[in-house]
């Protein structure tokens, strides 16, 4: 696979009129969102508002019913030239351009920490093992786990697991990293270490979409904050405006309760 990088003016992610239902329940309605390169977008909202589903639609872990999603200018899910749904291989090629970090970490338990990070570069990108190892060592150092290469996931704390998961996502040099409530399963003392890593990534210019309940993080790190309510984006603003002067009563209430 070639190291394709899109021109700077193409957004990392562009979502247009995306909708999704589970049975009779409409979980996403006409979602429009553009995330430019280097931007951090925080997605807020109460449980069940559709935040995670929106994130999972971006890399097609959930298939939206309507609308289009482009990753670095390339449409995901539909092969437009052939006029059909993407096959598994086409989908995999595009998914390889997105990283994802899950609430429950999902590290592969049979692989050591460094193997977890090397796995996708080797078996998805076809990178030589030695090169993958060099990258993995560098990334584990970046997330502060240089001493854990050969540990297995079950021996790590939640915060350490999540930092390995971040290194694993970074190893694919993705166009965008999707964070699905990355700190929600951590005990309060461990939240900080993961948020610190994420803050550093934003400084380095990584494009990130972060579904989170961490208001402080959203305020300090985001370029845009998006608020979802019953599947609709009811507010989209830079953090300064979002947190000090929200437009809707709903967001005002949400911020009061969260404060």
């Amino acid at each position, binding site marked *: 696979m070639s190291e394709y990088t899109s021109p700077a003016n193409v957004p990392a992610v562009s979502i247009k009129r995306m909708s999704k239902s589970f049975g009779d329940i409409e979980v996403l309605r006409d979602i429009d969102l553009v995330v430019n390169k280097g931007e951090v977008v925080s997605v807020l909202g109460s449980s069940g508002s559709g935040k995670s589903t929106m994130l999972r639609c971006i890399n097609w872990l959930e298939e939206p019913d309507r609308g289009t999603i482009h990753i670095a200018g390339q449409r995901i899910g539909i092969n437009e030239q052939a006029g059909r749904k993407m096959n598994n291989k086409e989908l995999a090629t595009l*998914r390889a351009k997105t990283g994802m970090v899950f609430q429950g970490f999902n590290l592969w*338990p049979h692989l050591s920490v460094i193997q977890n990070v090397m*796995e996708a570069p080797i078996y*998805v990108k076809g990178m030589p093992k030695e090169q993958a190892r060099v990258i993995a060592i560098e990334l584990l150092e970046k997330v502060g786990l240089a001493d854990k290469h050969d540990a297995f996931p079950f*021996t790590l704390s939640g915060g350490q697991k999540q930092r390995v998961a971040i290194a694993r996502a970074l190893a*694919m040099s993705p166009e965008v990293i999707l964070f699905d409530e990355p700190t929600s399963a951590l005990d309060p003392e461990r939240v900080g270490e993961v948020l610190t890593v994420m803050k550093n990534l934003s400084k380095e210019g990584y494009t990130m979409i972060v579904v989170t309940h961490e208001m402080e993080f959203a305020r300090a790190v985001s370029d845009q904050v998006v608020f979802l309510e019953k599947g609709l984006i009811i507010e989209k603003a830079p953090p300064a405006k979002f947190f000090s002067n929200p437009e809707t009563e709903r967001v005002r209430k949400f911020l009061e309760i969260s404060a």
Partner: protein
Amino acid sequence: MTEWSILWDAREIFFNGLIATLGLFSLSIICAFVLGCVLVYQLEDDSVLSKALRLLINLMRTLPFLILAYLLYYGLPQLGLRMSAWTAGLLALIVYHAAYFAEILRGCRLIMPEGYVEAAKAHGFTPLRLYLRIVLPQLVIKTRPLLGNQLIIALKDTAFLTIITLQELTAAANSVQSTYFIPTQAFVVVIVLYWLISICLELALKRAARFGAKRGFDYV
């Protein structure tokens, strides 16, 4: 004492039987395990093929092994397909135990947390790579005791093949006891030999458990 010296004189028959049993067993379980893994991969999609395979697996599991061996060796020639006892016996062992291996792995696959699969998909794994690198290793580590049990069952099933004239260990004992009329001693010898093979299998599986224990799957 003379019976035992007769047995010692017939040691070559036992030895040849043992080699045949070991060959039959190792070749069939390797093929059966690979076939079982292929079956479980095919079951990943919800397709017509996977439904047909599920049916086939269940059919195999409800069929007594001896009848399958009979069918292949005595039944198929009626349809014009004649096989040697070795081919028929191997085929019976492979197909039969592949179904069991598949069922063991499938059961484990059903309860595997979907998060591992989603993480692999999100990182761009294609289905085959995902299965080989992420799913299958975990299934094998987790089902180790069940797979081990199945190996021992497969070993004992090789004895049935004496009935379709395959010259394995049980056939060797049978030939010695009917020639010299010493059934007890002849069968005691092969019982000990089956027992020794099983113990070796158990030991190998115990060692394999360390692999899982190191990864937090297993306890030793």
